[in-house]
């Protein structure tokens, strides 16, 4: 996922992921190791099951899944119809679903409507199609402001919208998870479904970016 990174003129965010000191990280590593050994000893978790979970979420799931869903919707109008009607079922056709994607809804960007997804209360995110969320999606800056100032937040991602475009912010307050179907960029008429999927970024499916023309 190629995220364009902007330099900012404010000092480093004190609560930014990467700001954690090596000492603090070591301290946390020790605490967590102790906790895991306790929970394992008590029969609350099986360390091998944890290994398996990490493997799945670190390697098997990610925005490449969602990108396949979007590309299919771009090339197959019938699939797109089913996706917009019942995204959970349509996404299952491609083999995706499960934890944090039990109730999926797809929302479509058009020249007059731009959708963007957030979870203001915690960090809900459609894992089966996008994997685990990036740090900024879980940070206060995004969660607090995108509902009240979506255009300002989108501009920080380099996404500017005309005044006559309606911005719809989807706040994931329940167990329903939202996936944005970005607009298919011009100049992609002769591309294959696989080539199209390679264009679709995580940020476009969250709704903070558009899919760039190839």
């Amino acid at each position, binding site marked *: 996922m190629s995220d364009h990174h902007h330099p900012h003129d404010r000092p480093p965010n004190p609560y930014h992921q990467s700001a954690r000191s090596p000492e603090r990280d070591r301290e946390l590593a020790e605490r967590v190791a102790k906790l895991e050994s306790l929970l394992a000893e008590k029969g609350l978790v099986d360390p091998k*099951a944890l290994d398996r979970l990490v493997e799945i979420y670190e390697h098997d799931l990610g925005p490449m899944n969602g990108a396949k869903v979007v590309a299919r919707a771009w090339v197959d109008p019938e699939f797109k119809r089913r996706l917009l009607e019942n995204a959970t079922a349509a996404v299952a056709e491609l083999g995706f679903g499960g934890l944090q994607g039990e*109730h999926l809804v797809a929302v479509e960007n058009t020249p007059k409507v731009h959708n963007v997804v957030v979870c203001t209360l915690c960090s809900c995110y459609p894992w089966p199609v996008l994997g685990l969320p990036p740090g900024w999606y879980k940070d206060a800056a995004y969660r607090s402001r995108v509902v009240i100032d979506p255009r300002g937040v989108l501009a*920080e991602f380099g996404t500017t919208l005309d005044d006559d475009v309606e911005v719809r912010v989807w*706040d994931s*307050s329940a*167990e329903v998870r939202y996936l944005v179907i970005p607009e298919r960029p011009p100049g992609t008429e002769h591309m294959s479904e696989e080539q199209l999927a390679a264009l679709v970024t995580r940020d476009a499916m969250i709704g903070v970016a558009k899919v760039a023309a190839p």
Partner: protein
Amino acid sequence: MNGIHDMGGLTCFGPVRREPDEPVFHSDWERRVFAMNLAGMAFLGPVDRARHAIERMDPAEYLTTPYYEHWLAAIVTMAKDLGYLTDEELRTGRAAGGKTPPHPPPTADMIEALVRSGMPATRTDGRNEPRFRVGDRVRARNLDIPGHTRLARYVRGKVGVVTMHHGSHVFPDTVAHDRGENAQPLYNVRFEAKELWGDNVARRDCVHIDLWEDYLEPAGETRSAP
């Protein structure tokens, strides 16, 4: 509980900060916390209990610690609340009494199925008949809720339009506190930016948010006179 986590509408956190080439996890302990939280749900869940454990963090700590420290706090809080862990055990790292779980934990070979099947929040044994229909104007109730809720403060008292009926879903406000699943119709409601953020807002934007039936009342209903 009106907590710092309920931050929709605050404008004081500066620009969104992205990390170039961000990895899925930054440290191995993040991997373990992520997985412990998921696997531990078998005994520590439901998810709304975990959310409420995070909501009870010290607000300054909540704002200054990254995400997986929140999850770590949630695991410890829930395990202690449920009697599986004591402060002493956490200090020494040695098991010393405490409750034993009722069955063995999920094993590695069960994980794939668990991830694939998920944990649907829909139920058919609760209230199934929706009180509202798509297109109805509704008001999000203003409610004083001491515990967990998903009724975000920024919509309380505001009028919107029902855009979807998602079926009947487990109710967070009760399930987080062992007061039952209380499944009931869940709706997606659209609120105009002008209604939410101020009568001086000109942009034609909106927020869609999912709200349970108990959070809503017909918009025509008389508000109590002060």
